[in-house]
């Protein structure tokens, strides 16, 4: 029997296909199309302390094989989220990874404290890399010291159980350096990658298309960047679990990220093009793995790193 299970830190998942944060609404929208419990996990939209309106529109632009978004972390804030969304997801039998985002180190600390007692959560994804919040200078994951501070704040406040997955931006000179820093600060795993900072100018209005000017590039266009980041980080720290993402739209694509070193794969933009994308990818990936002779997902993780000549 093929073993599709995977793990991130102490958390176990029945399969490695997750939704990507911010790309699955509250879960309810997708539950019209499939059972959420079929997923490895639902990763929630990054939740902040307070309610947030997000950015003005236009918030999106399609780009060649991708899209730009500047949602600006619209959401109800942690209290309403814990009251309304988590219980509902739990009822669905979904495996839940909660994504959190803060505007200050203290925000991260408070969010962690609010979550430590919540049952039914498998892991915490700490988004320290969203390029959409007002001040680009404030992106935690861009500097080793701020990245470290945010993760340390979560580590100190979360208690012992819940695995912490730090989500990093590829928009840095060395993603390995940032990865090492957050692992040293207590991250159990890494989520790679968040969107790439980009801009589209509307040639009709002759101004940036997005109200927020810049936005995050996602979709197949950035997959080579995701594969590179995952490969580099897995090479530097083979024992740190990676939740991979970036442009995955098929089982082949998910397989590529897994070979690079991802233990699980989140699907974002592909869901916009196809609400059933995650289910399709889950099935296709299993077929890819089996047809390549793997008995389990785990054997394939990082397989592209094996020594020359070494074949299955």
């Amino acid at each position, binding site marked *: 029997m093929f073993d599709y299970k995977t793990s991130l830190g102490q958390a176990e998942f029945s399969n490695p296909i997750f939704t990507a944060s*911010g790309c699955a*609404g509250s879960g309810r929208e997708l539950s019209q*199309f499939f059972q959420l419990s079929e997923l490895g996990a639902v990763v929630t939209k990054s939740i902040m302390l*307070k309610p947030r309106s997000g950015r*003005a*529109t236009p918030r999106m632009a*399609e780009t060649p094989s*991708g899209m730009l978004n500047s949602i600006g972390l*619209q959401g109800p804030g942690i209290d309403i989220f814990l009251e309304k969304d988590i219980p509902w997801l739990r009822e669905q039998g979904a495996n839940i990874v909660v994504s959190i985002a803060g505007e200050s180190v203290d925000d991260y600390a408070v969010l962690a404290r609010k979550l430590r007692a919540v049952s039914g959560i498998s892991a915490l994804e700490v988004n320290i890399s969203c390029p959409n919040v007002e001040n680009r200078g404030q992106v935690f994951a861009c500097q080793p010291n701020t990245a470290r501070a945010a993760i340390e704040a979560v580590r100190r406040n979360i208690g012992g159980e819940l695995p912490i997955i730090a989500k990093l931006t590829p928009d840095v000179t060395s993603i390995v350096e940032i990865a090492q820093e957050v692992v040293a600060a207590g991250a159990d795993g890494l989520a790679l990658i968040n969107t790439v900072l980009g801009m589209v100018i509307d040639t009709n209005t002759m101004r940036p298309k997005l109200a927020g000017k810049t936005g995050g590039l996602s979709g197949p266009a950035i997959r080579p960047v995701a594969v590179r980041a995952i490969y580099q980080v897995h090479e530097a720290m083979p024992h740190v679990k990676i939740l991979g993402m970036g442009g995955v739209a098929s089982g082949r694509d998910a397989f590529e990220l897994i070979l690079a070193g991802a233990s699980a794969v989140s699907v974002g933009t592909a869901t916009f093009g196809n*609400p059933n994308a995650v289910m399709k990818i889950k099935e296709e990936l299993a077929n890819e793995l089996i047809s390549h002779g793997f008995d389990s997902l785990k054997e394939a993780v990082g397989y592209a790193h094996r020594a020359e000549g070494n074949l299955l």
Partner: protein
Amino acid sequence: MIGINKNATQIMAEIVSNKKVGAYNHIVFAVGDIASRSKPGNFVAIAVGGSNSAMVLRRAFAIYRTFDKGSSGGLLEIVVAPHGEGSTWLTNQLPGYKVDLIAPLGTAFGIPTEPVRALLVGGGYGSAPLFGLSEVLKNRGCRVDMVLGASTAMKIYAPLDGKRSVNSLTTVTEDGTTGITGKVTDVLAEIIETNEIDIIYSCGPMGMLEAINEISSKLDVMHQCAIEESMACGIGVCMTCVLPIKGDDGQIRMLRSCIDGPVVDGESVVWDSKRSIPKGTWGAH
């Protein structure tokens, strides 16, 4: 919010016919029982460009009409303006080709329980969903007047059977190539007063909807409009399609036009908020 899009399904829908009508293409799809679940105001989201396409997002189109011929034979019709690459691609597909289609999506026009006097106002291809609405309203005993506007005659979509389904039809073009020369809003006030209109249903460009709302507001007529915001997913998961809507509690919230719309109460929309978040919006800072 449980049961979002609970009628929506994703299918491969065969193109049954695709014909040029003026500046638009009238496209008919075989959709099985989706036809019976669709209501005027709902929309479809279609994947464009084929399997190696650089276009990764769906395109939204208002449902023009549906024919419910039982689960095997339902038809769904849309009217497409070739705008950019995606919609142009769609207008170029031939009968027999199958597209990936999700429907029905979004809110529908609210139908009054009593017979009322309704005015339907459409701009360009925005007339499309109004014909199906007109039929429903007529079946409920309503009087239906219609005003259609566009820049030029080629962009007025008003098929013969559509024309027959309304009590009066006024067309307005900016260049005067058909009907009255001007904008739809030039003629509204008079029709509203003459025909003692109770409710306006509108669909078209945002600028037009806003102008209509000014008039309906002033004349104290109800106004339901189908808005058109840039959409990435059409099913409520991306949060790109939001617009500021004032709730019954007076609170402005950024709501998704694909779930809480496209049909919304004109009075509830905070118009002219393009490229900014209105002051006082929930969560603004």
